[in-house]
């Protein structure tokens, strides 16, 4: 048993850190530090910087642009991004559809799509959820009917994150309505510019626009855009969903937020003292820090066991990371609400280019929206209730 990183790992960490320091635009870093949303261009800008360095899709196989890093190196890379804070790679292409394409897609699909994911020429979004399905993903109703060398798609997807920016969407569609729930589902790649697709924004309670409904009205999709075999889509979806594990706890992001909280709590005053000196605030902060340290250790243990046992199998321990990770992310936003106090109230317009002076401290306007927005992390990607069901069944055998 040994906690420390090896010399090589430390050198790698320093290299990553130096690269980020030298190349991350200050504007992007400041927005992330205060919990603000980035514009599409900013995400593309940063992805291109990483791509030039060869680091835009590190965990992919080398032949598609990956870095051949150890799991520890991947972990270090993603921790350093979160610590900066810098944008982590956009997951829809990198972590979701990319691995599905290089694992189950044909050569033509690999050639066509993977390079454009790596440099973010194509922005992807995910078409899994449907209204009324919620945690019961497999009850989806969007139909795709074969018509010559096309599929004709009708139906509706929802909770589609950043679909407003997307060039492509990967969808689960029902190709065999008579088969049992999980069977009869196929995995289709659909160009967002195809006639019949409508994107309707869903405004969230933080005032932001992250998610959308996507409507399909007789959308004709070339059959060559089917991934793998027809009616095997549920298998690919399960592969996709179990693929993103280590990052799920968001330890690095929470660490960066806590460092920021400490800075801000040392600036805001209560009477003669500072917020950071208030014993009750301090105790709550320390409790969260300890839980986060424990989560970091738990994450490293999962990482080590995956490095030893091989990846690919769904690891129910990832439910622990999801539950505790989301609880901590939410607790962190509550601490920041405690720091900002009455200045949680004013609502600044979220658009770029707003130039009125702030009400209260200049970081205050992002605090309440971030608190509101972060309620989602215990809902999406399998709610915490679903995660507890998974632990009860898969680990405890109940």
């Amino acid at each position, binding site marked *: 048993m040994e906690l420390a990183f090896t010399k090589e790992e430390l050198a790698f960490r320093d290299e990553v850190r130096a690269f980020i320091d030298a190349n991350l635009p200050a504007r992007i870093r400041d927005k992330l530090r205060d919990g603000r949303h980035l514009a599409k261009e900013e995400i593309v800008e940063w992805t291109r910087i990483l791509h030039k360095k060869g680091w835009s899709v590190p965990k992919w196989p080398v032949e598609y642009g990956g870095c051949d890093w150890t799991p520890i190196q991947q972990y270090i890379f993603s921790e350093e991004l979160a610590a900066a804070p810098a944008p982590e790679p956009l997951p829809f292409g990198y972590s979701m559809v990319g691995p599905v394409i290089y694992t189950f897609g044909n050569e033509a699909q690999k050639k066509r799509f993977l390079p454009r994911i790596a440099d973010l020429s194509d922005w992807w979004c995910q078409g899994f*959820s449907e209204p*009324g*399905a*919620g*945690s*019961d993903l497999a*009850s989806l109703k969007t139909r795709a009917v074969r018509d010559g060398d096309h599929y004709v798609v009708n139906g509706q997807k*929802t*909770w589609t994150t950043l679909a407003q920016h997307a060039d492509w969407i990967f969808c689960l569609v029902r190709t065999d309505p008579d088969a049992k729930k999980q069977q009869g589902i196929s995995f289709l790649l659909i160009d967002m510019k195809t006639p019949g697709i409508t994107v309707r924004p*869903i*405004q*969230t*309670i933080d*005032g932001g626009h992250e998610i959308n409904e996507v409507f399909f009205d007789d959308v004709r999709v070339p059959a060559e855009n089917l991934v793998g075999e027809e009616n095997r889509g549920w298998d690919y979806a399960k592969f996709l969903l179990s693929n993103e594990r280590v990052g799920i706890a968001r330890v690095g992001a929470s660490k960066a937020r806590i460092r920021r909280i400490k800075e801000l709590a040392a600036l*805001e*005053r*209560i*009477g003669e003292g500072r917020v950071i000196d*208030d014993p*009750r*605030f301090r105790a709550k902060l320390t409790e969260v820090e300890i839980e986060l340290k424990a989560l970091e250790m738990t994450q490293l243990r999962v990482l080590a066991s995956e490095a030893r046992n091989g990846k690919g199998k769904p690891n129910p321990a990832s439910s622990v990371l999801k539950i505790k990770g989301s609880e901590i992310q*939410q607790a962190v936003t509550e601490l920041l*609400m*405690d720091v*900002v*106090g*009455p*200045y*949680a*109230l*004013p*609502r*600044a317009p979220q658009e770029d280019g707003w130039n*009125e002076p702030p*009400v*209260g401290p200049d970081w205050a306007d992002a605090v*309440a*929206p971030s*608190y*509101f*927005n972060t*309620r*989602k992390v*215990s*809902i*999406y990607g399998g*709610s*915490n*209730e679903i995660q*507890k069901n998974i632990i009860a069944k898969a680990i405890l055998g109940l």
Partner: protein
Amino acid sequence: MDFDLNEEQRLLKESVDRLLLDRYDFEARKRHMSGPEGWSPEIWESFAELGLLALPFSEEDGGFGGGGAEAMLVMESFGRALVVEPYFATVILGGGLMARAASAEQRARVLPGVIEGRTRLAFAHSERQSRYDLADVRATAVRDGEGWKLNGDKTLVLHGDCAQQLIVSARVAGGPRDEGGVGLFLVAADAPGLSRRGYATQDGMRAAEVALRDVRAEALGDPEGAMPIIRQVADEAVAALCAEAVGAMERAHELTIEYLKTRQQFGVHIGAFQALQHRGAEMFVALEQARSMAMLAAMMSRDPDPVERSRAVSGAKVQVDRSGRFIGQSAIQLHGGVGMTMEYAVGHYFKRLSMIEKTFGDIDHHLRLVSEAGGMAL
């Protein structure tokens, strides 16, 4: 001991609830908020017609002489409907201060306009450094002939953008956080030297930053002895917020239970899942605890003993905010994704509850006050 409403209170509650039922559902509320003021002058007129704007004033002043219980009834109903009109600012804060601090002449001059719905009030008190410390007043007032001249910056003035008259606290004597030396001053919103910047708040209400540069004003009562009145009215304000929060969490809980009964997943109503049933039950327990303390705050908010009054009110704010946080967060969680959307009502209750938590002192602040007062005097 008696928790029942008397006949007048029952009539008051019924008339408020009927108005809101008829004209203040979630869609109507959106329309009310879409106007230039961010709230509805027509609704405000209805409040005047119902006499709600006259609630806290004595009968000599043309009011109804309502107390804590009446304020609780109105605010709880407002909480259920998420009313965005400037009632809290004008009637609870402004009205409370006018009733207690103003001379008969001043009351006769200002209150009829308030009661008839023509005049809105706001309380310009908080400052950038003050956080929740009521005595931390650094704006200054100096004698200027018959009147006073005010200088300073006031922040987070609730509905300060639409008020015609501002009640401004300013320091006449003493150090930054001294209890003595603070006065209340009445200023017309269009007075020379006064500038305002209005903005929306996270819960769809409004507030303003107010700058005062040599603004002429008249004193309300003793210009060096206003703190007891400010503390009294702040306690009434907290009691009113507690009642509003109870209304909001009651409705958020109802929406959640309705959702559990209708929403299908895995082939059943999700309300069939025991884990969600238990969360719903825990929300109910939290709601009843909050309701109890909101009642205590309402009944104690006019208590002659300021120590007992503040202890009860601060204890209520702690309980209500804790319950509100749990219920608001749980309501979102049990709704799942739909609870995160602006199109659905429950998120707006969550946001209002979150902002109430940060208004007139948050959990830590009031917990400290109760603790310093020796606990809840069990």
